[in-house]
């Protein structure tokens, strides 16, 4: 009894109840889940007396590493290919962190478990800390890296960018819809428990391999808080499971959250890791290999499957399908190709692939060259201005894709694209599961049951529609991706800054045809035209190739 045990200290703390006695909380964000039969527990025995010293120590060490990086001139030695992609990644990632902080109060109100409020409060503090040290990392890159353009404006950039909208959609997932769907299932059960390993463990390893040891320091500091968050999710899930009326909603939400996380995280992190690295050692794990180990073998088989006997309906089919997309349908490669197609609408530079890259891709993903090799050779050929347009406006056997209304990644695996008319608008979806998410899951009724808290996926979702009918030069000016001289673009399809003649300017863009929103055009079609469009689209690919001509 006298042992100084952490578990016992934790038990004592539970006696200090968080339930407010002095007022009735107002609920802005409700849930359709019920917690009538749930036991109220908190699996993680963590107390603030050890939490704050630990965080202080971790912050000190991040500052120390930052000093070291400046003294060691790390910023001039890091691979530019890698650091350019960090302009995108570090513009996005603080937003999910802050969204996660905002998600915690949704749970205070909706999960009747005073024990867990301790953990949710800690998570909220964690997320603010993460966002702060990530933004500080970005500031250091901006001040010290050879090309600060893109780091300086990234808070404004990501939210309406060609690629950044995908990240915005992900961050908004933590606070969109039913409070439990968003803050618990989407954020803690799927994003944090399954996908942070690729985000915060694999990414830093790749950064280090490219000469950046500061990013790993910051992200290890972040990742070592994940235990608290995983535990919050697990406790809430077990509570939800004990009320059978929740099982239907859990099944729905796990399907949505799993699929959406796969679509977004695998797209972004897969691209950073596979196309942002110069490390082409054959024994380096590919994204697919990491995914198999962390997400399939561990998350799926050792975390999710044991919950099946407690009534959790696991989307086995979607887990297999996500793997099918990554391994057989080239999901990550299709995304990287799309990101590079629209390089001019971005705020970082994308390095062409070299023979060493080709060799590695062919080794890790047999058949890669046959699908994607030609296109990347074209990308290389068209990377310096020489009387031609940027690649998006040249004929390189690539059909510009439609956006998926739900996940905001385009419909890149062409055969999977489906169409639906929702809320009076024709929408394209990258996969049947994304159609289901918008047309079935995010609705005020689900399988005959009232789900008023679910909300809907609305707003200005598609980047292309924002700029339908605009000239490209005006688009880039409007987004602010122009360098100090007022005409040279921030984005470039190569890394060579030495010769002004090799850099693209607004003048090059002015000659291009205007931006067309595929969704606007889709809604102008007649029924017959739309049917023909779908038939053609589904025959396109891989690598965005036009449908074979029918004889």
């Amino acid at each position, binding site marked *: 009894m006298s042992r100084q045990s952490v*578990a016992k200290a934790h038990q004592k703390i539970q006696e200090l109840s968080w339930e407010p006695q002095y007022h009735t909380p107002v609920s802005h964000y409700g849930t359709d889940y019920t917690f009538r039969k749930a036991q109220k527990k908190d699996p*993680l025995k963590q107390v603030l007396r050890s939490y704050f010293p*630990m965080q202080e120590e971790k912050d000190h*060490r991040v500052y120390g590493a930052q000093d070291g990086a400046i003294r060691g001139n790390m910023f001039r030695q890091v691979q530019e290919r890698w650091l350019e992609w960090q302009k995108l990644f570090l513009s996005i990632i603080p937003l999910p962190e802050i969204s996660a902080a905002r998600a915690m109060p949704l749970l205070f109100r909706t999960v009747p478990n005073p024990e867990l409020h301790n953990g949710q409060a800690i998570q909220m503090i964690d997320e603010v800390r993460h966002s702060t040290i990530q933004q500080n990392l970005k500031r250091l890159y901006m001040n010290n890296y050879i090309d600060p353009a893109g780091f300086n404006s990234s808070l404004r950039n990501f939210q309406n960018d060609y690629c950044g909208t995908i990240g915005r959609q992900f961050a908004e997932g933590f606070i969109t819809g039913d409070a439990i769907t968003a803050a618990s299932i989407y954020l803690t059960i799927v994003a944090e428990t399954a996908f942070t390993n690729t985000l915060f463990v694999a990414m830093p390893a790749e950064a280090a391999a490219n000469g950046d040891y500061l990013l790993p320091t910051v992200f290890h500091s972040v990742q070592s808080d994940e235990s608290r968050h995983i535990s919050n999710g697990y406790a809430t899930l077990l509570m939800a499971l004990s009320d059978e009326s929740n099982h239907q909603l859990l099944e729905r939400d796990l399907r949505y959250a799993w699929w959406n996380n796969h679509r977004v995280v695998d797209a972004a992190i897969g691209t950073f890791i596979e196309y942002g690295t110069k490390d082409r050692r054959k024994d380096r794990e590919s994204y697919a290999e990491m995914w198999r180990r962390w997400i399939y073998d561990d998350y799926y088989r050792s975390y999710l499957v044991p919950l099946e006997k407690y009534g959790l309906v696991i989307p086995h089919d979607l887990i297999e399908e996500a793997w099918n997309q990554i391994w057989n349908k080239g999901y990550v490669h299709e995304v990287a190709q799309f990101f590079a197609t629209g390089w001019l609408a971005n705020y970082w530079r994308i390095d062409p692939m070299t023979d060493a890259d080709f060799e590695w891709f062919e080794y890790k993903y047999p058949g890669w060259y046959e699908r994607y090799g030609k296109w990347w050779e074209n990308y290389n050929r068209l990377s310096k201005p020489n009387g031609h347009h940027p690649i998006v406006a040249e004929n390189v056997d690539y059909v510009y894709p439609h956006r998926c209304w739900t996940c905001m990644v385009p419909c890149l695996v062409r055969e999977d694209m489906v169409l639906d008319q929702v809320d009076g608008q024709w929408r394209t979806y990258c996969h049947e599961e994304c159609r289901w998410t918008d047309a079935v899951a995010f609705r005020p009724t689900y399988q005959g049951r009232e789900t008023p808290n679910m909300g809907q996926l609305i707003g200005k979702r598609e980047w292309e529609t924002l700029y339908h009918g605009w000239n490209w030069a005006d688009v880039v000016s409007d987004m602010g991706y122009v360098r100090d001289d007022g005409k040279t673009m921030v984005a470039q399809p190569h890394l060579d800054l030495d010769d002004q003649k090799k850099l693209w300017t607004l003048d090059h863009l002015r000659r291009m045809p205007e931006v067309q929103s595929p969704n606007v055009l889709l809604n102008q079609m007649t029924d017959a035209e739309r049917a023909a469009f779908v038939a053609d689209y589904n025959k396109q690919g891989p690598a965005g190739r036009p449908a074979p001509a029918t004889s």
Partner: protein
Amino acid sequence: MSGAGKGELNKGQPVTNKHKVRFEPVGIEIDVDEDQTILRAAAEQGIMLMHGCKEGQCASCKSFVLEGEDIEHDRYSTFALPDYEKEEGYTLLCRAHAYEDVTIELLNYDEDMIRSGLPIQQAVAEVVSKDPVTHDMRHLVLRLIEPGEVKFFPGQYMDISVPGGAGSGGAGSGAGAVRSFSMANTSSRDGLLEFVIKVYAGGLFSRFLDSELRAGDRLELTGPFGVFTLRDSDAELVFVGGGAGMAPILSLLRSMAERGIHRKATFFYGARTRRDLCFEQELAAIAEKLPNFRYVPALSHHDPSHGDWDGEAGLITDVVKRLTGSLAGAHAYVCGPPPMVEAAIPLLETLGVPDKRVYYDKFTTTGEPSD
């Protein structure tokens, strides 16, 4: 104790370099090879420990070493385990190798889930015997055929498929009805599964058990399931059982006797008459082995024609109320017919058992409503 005779443990066999790792406060003990991380060894033995990256970076598996020093770690992030925490006794189980017997306090676990890692298996077993232990209860013993062993925790149950009307065996697991029965024994290598089954007039499995099932017949099983398992701590234990609720409680008691767990424990067992009592001798033997254990049978409808009775009388819940004082901080395990369970839970809470420490299995029948 642990240090003495360490070298003799192998008894002349090749050195295997295994050590005991005990997890507190759940009281689970496993053998861990030096080559394996503690997390990995636990997973292989069905113990679900909380973890994340398995790379020593996310700190989900961070735990506290209560006893033992000799732990080596594979490469890990010092953000997940700073040196000062390591010196205080923290460890990362996903990177930790034990080089002596150690006791680890888990900081991140759910008591109900920690044992859920035992794989659920489809099994075929053969009937060894089905002896009556009372006028309406049968002691069904099965021997596993394929696989030869199914690991389970004491207190867990299996689903047994009731073969469909036509013939036996071939009904398939999907087609026929399924009934859940708790094991009365503890998991062992011999592949035996013991059940105590009450025969209800018109009960689906009962009728099949009494009239059709023969020694040598084969049954299909799925399992193990359930969280009616012992949460080890120093707390007093109260078991309240009735009817076939004997089975999982007997399993827990047998396990305590095997492991020498000397916690204060009382087993209140309710029966109608003298002829409804069973396993009396074995329970007496357990009481001899575990001096802090007491078995209290009680009869609700004593009939002198079945013999003398100088034990407790009345409904079992009334007996618990009469004989126990405060049960503050105790852990209670309740298993029996639904009315008994429903009466026992509020009573135990009134006596001071914390609501999250009342563990129960309630069984339903397909025959007549139980008494």
